[in-house]
């Protein structure tokens, strides 16, 4: 024990204060003076024999080792060595250890001769492209040096010392010393960095992670067959032979593999598939369990010849597996928003994320990352409400796949819900969307008031599935009861129903919804013609299930009113009063009345004006009939509400339109049975004649002017009896330009007064318009407008130059 400590101390001491090269035995330890003299002679002979001088590697190679250490040169070397050994050369700690002396000689030689050669290679950081070559050269030089240093020992010294210690032990010892000298005097950090790079790039090549390779990797691909892998293995093996495959190299290897895995997961798969079309986790796992460990094991075996490393790697695979899935998941989560908005193609990416979020840590990472994505990409003033609602639907759908328990959805949608509550139109949009008619087969586009996804969702919903879910906590007999998920928040509520619409109805406050549904339903019911009110019934059922029946009484009454009106109409039209009125009405229009329960309907339009005479007569007859059928009740007409189908018989065409009553009343005023002269009115005249507010008159006139039934000149609206006449009506008329372009004009010019005037008129009416809209509208109203958008763009730019228009962020509008 004591001796061992002393040895240790000595080793430490020598490492701090290295003994001089002139290591000599102390004569005291030998004994008699003659023996001392003999010993010194032998020492001198031996050291002279082993001396390396400043021999260069090239010289040794050309002459050969044998020429250098020819025993003929020192015939008495063997005898000298015998003498030295007999005085205890073999014992480890002996000062007069010849081998110890030789090691110092080697060190001296290495520092003075070999190191300068290598230093020139490693002085600067090695460029990536040359890393392999430089490493290879270094290995060659070091191998040659090692051979040089080992040669005299192996050939001349060890055989004689063999009686004192086994050659293998001695050799191992010397090799260790050599390796220590090498790594001590070389810039190992740079070497290991270069080695790491070589390993990484070999890995990239083996697994084809370079993006331009394109070809997908086969997971059963055997990396060992690869040529560059062979080269790399040889290099690693060579480094091990010169003692440079130790800890530092292992660290470099670990780093390289870490980077390789990242490159493999992210570079090869994630970036090549940004929309997550492929489900990659299974393939990745096959790689992690197949090709990747093969690669690792091969390198490790070359680095250290312990066979237990192989079995250790097998245990590591589970960890690599986790690491790879986590990397893939993390990368995928970053584009979750894209996946969700392209749900039809991104199922693969979604499945990857589902595989990833198996632990609470990853789930919260997902929540954090996705909330971030939401706030930067969705929840800001630049997003239309319909878009937010569309995305909300996508989110609900996606998270139903990701996390059927709904905990994540609950967490994710909180910010969305909070945000949507600040959007005043959200409830309106939702209700309008729920009422929207979906034409099967026709693609549905979102409009500013309608979210196509909601409409699609509600229409795919079976009416029967809208059931009132039982209150779970009170249902003591529920054998399928399950506790809340472990990471649920305290106020987590299990979704009462799995369907998307129920989530949607949780978006806004109940009162907001109920108020909106009342006003919208009122508006909507009076607008739609007949029908079974399937959408409306379904909507009401939904809301009843969600908000309770008592709040929605008004809506139910409204719906019932529509049905009651139909039933009531039959007895009323058979009363004498109505029949008389009907008989005296020319043309016998189909007359129908919605009789609404005034108390339950939202504030209805109370506007009063003079409806056309025949209709007025019908109304009066109807009212009398109503009093007969329902005594004790009064009817109050709401002339501004209701729909009318009018047919206009003009000289050269017929126009049929369904319009509001006030609109029909206005156009009816233009009707004449006998005279051929077109009728004209100004807004003021009509407003007075019909006792209608000018606002409605103007709106109606504009409507008919847009339909080419009327035209305006100097505030007077006149019927266009024939479209051909219309062309000659005067320069102020836009459609005047229907006239064909003049034939002698070879290249039609986009900058005509007509076009300018059209654009000005258009922008006066619409405010700012993008160039596409202007182009489209010009093409619609002017059949002769054959210019493309670029040419129109030139005209617009010219007009901006003339200071007539301004361009504000792509919208052209009049300069004020």
């Amino acid at each position, binding site marked *: 024990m004591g001796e061992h400590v002393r040895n240790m101390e000595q080793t430490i001491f020598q490492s701090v204060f290295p003994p001089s090269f002139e290591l000599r035995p102390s004569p005291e330890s030998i004994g008699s003076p003659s023996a001392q003299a003999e010993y010194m002679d032998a020492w001198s002979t031996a050291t002279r024999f082993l001396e390396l001088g400043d021999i260069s590697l090239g010289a040794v190679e050309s002459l050969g080792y044998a020429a250098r250490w020819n025993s003929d040169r020192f015939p008495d070397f063997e005898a000298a060595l015998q003498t030295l050994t007999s005085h205890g050369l073999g014992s480890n700690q002996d000062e007069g250890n010849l081998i110890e002396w030789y090691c110092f000689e080697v060190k001296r030689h290495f520092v003075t001769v070999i190191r300068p050669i290598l230093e020139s290679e490693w002085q600067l950081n090695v460029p990536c492209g040359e890393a392999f070559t430089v490493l290879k050269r270094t290995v060659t030089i070091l191998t040659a040096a090692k051979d040089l240093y080992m040669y005299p020992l192996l050939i001349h010294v060890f055989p004689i010392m063999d009686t004192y210690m086994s050659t293998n032990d001695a050799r191992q010892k010397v090799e260790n010393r050599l390796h220590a000298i090498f790594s001590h005097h070389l810039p190992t950090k740079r070497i290991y960095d270069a080695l790491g790079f070589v390993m990484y790039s070999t890995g990239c090549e083996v697994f084809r992670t370079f993006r331009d390779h394109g070809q997908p990797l086969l997971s059963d691909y055997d990396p060992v067959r690869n040529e560059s892998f062979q080269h790399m293995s040889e290099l690693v093996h060579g480094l091990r032979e010169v003692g440079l495959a130790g800890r530092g190299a292992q660290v470099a290897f670990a780093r390289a593999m870490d980077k390789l895995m990242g490159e493999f997961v992210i570079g090869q798969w994630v970036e090549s598939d940004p929309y997550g079309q492929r489900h990659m986790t299974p393939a990745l796992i096959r790689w992690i369990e197949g090709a990747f460990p093969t690669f690792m094991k091969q390198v490790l075996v070359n680095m250290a010849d312990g066979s237990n490393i192989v079995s250790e790697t097998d245990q590591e695979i589970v960890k690599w597996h986790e690491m790879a899935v986590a990397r893939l998941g993390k990368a995928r989560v970053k584009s979750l928003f894209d996946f969700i908005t392209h749900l039809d193609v991104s199922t693969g990416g979604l499945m990857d994320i589902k595989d990833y979020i198996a632990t609470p840590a990853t789930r919260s990472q997902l929540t954090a990352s996705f909330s971030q994505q939401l706030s930067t990409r969705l929840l800001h003033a630049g997003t239309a409400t319909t878009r937010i609602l569309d995305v909300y639907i996508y989110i609900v759908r996606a998270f139903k796949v990701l996390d059927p328990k709904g905990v994540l959805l609950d967490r994710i949608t909180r910010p969305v819900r909070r945000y949507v509550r600040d959007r005043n139109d959200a409830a309106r949009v939702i209700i309008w969307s729920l009422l929207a008619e979906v034409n099967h087969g026709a693609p549905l586009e979102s409009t500013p008031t309608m979210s196509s996804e909601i409409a699609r969702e509600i229409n795919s919903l079976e009416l029967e599935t809208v059931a009132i879910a039982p209150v779970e906590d009170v249902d003591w007999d529920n054998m399928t009861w399950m506790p809340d998920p472990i990471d649920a928040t305290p106020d987590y509520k299990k979704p009462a129903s799995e369907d998307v619409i129920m989530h949607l109805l949780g978006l806004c406050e109940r009162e907001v919804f109920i108020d909106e549904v009342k006003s919208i339903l009122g508006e909507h019911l*009076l607008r739609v*013609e007949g029908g079974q009110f399937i959408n409306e019934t379904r909507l009401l059922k939904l809301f009843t299930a969600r908000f309770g029946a008592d709040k929605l*009484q008004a809506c*139910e*009454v409204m719906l019932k009113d529509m049905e*009651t009106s139909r039933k009531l109409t039959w007895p009323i039209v058979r009363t004498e009063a109505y029949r008389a009125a009907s008989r005296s009405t020319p*043309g016998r*229009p*189909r*007359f*129908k*009345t*919605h*009789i*609404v*329960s*005034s*108390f*339950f*309907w939202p504030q*209805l339009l109370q506007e009063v004006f003079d409806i*056309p005479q*025949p*209709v007025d007569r*019908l109304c009066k007859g109807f*009212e*009398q009939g*109503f*009093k007969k059928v*329902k*005594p*004790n*009740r*009064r*009817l*109050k*007409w*709401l*002339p501004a*509400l*209701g*729909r*009318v*189908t*009018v*047919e*206009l*018989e*003009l000289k050269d065409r017929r126009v*049929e339109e369904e319009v509001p*009553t006030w609109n*029909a009343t206005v156009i*009816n005023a*233009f*009707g*004449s*049975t006998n005279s051929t002269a077109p*009728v004209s009115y100004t807004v003021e005249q009509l407003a007075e004649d019909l006792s209608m507010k000018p606002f409605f008159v103007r709106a109606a006139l504009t409507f008919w002017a847009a339909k080419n*039934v009327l035209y305006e000149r100097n505030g007077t609206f006149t019927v266009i*009896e024939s479209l051909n006449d219309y062309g000659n009506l005067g320069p102020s008329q836009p459609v005047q330009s229907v006239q064909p372009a003049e034939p002698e004009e070879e290249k039609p010019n986009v900058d005509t007064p007509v076009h300018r005037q059209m654009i000005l008129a258009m922008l006066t009416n619409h405010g700012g318009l993008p160039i596409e809209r202007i182009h489209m509208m010009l093409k619609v109203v002017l059949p002769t407008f054959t210019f493309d958008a670029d040419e129109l763009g030139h005209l617009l730019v010219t007009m901006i130059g003339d200071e007539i228009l301004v361009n504000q962020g792509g919208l052209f509008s009049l300069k004020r």
Partner: protein
Amino acid sequence: MKVNIKSWTAVAAWRWDMPEDDVCGICRSPYDSTCSKCKYPGDECPLLWGECNHCFHAHCIFVWIRAETSHGRCPMCRQEWKIVAKVSQD
């Protein structure tokens, strides 16, 4: 131009032939609304007039009359409750 009105869908609001904003003396809901138990106004929740000229939702006054404490009297004027069959004016 000849204008043919092919169809005309009008809208009219009905209400009970009572002063506006008047409420049923029993449930305090407007006559045009329903009694507390009904969902739909009109035929499903009619009004009843008494000889004393007071008017209630039919369901409200039935419940009242059925109660013993009412002694069959109108809750407003304490006269004996007798239904008047109101007929239309013409």
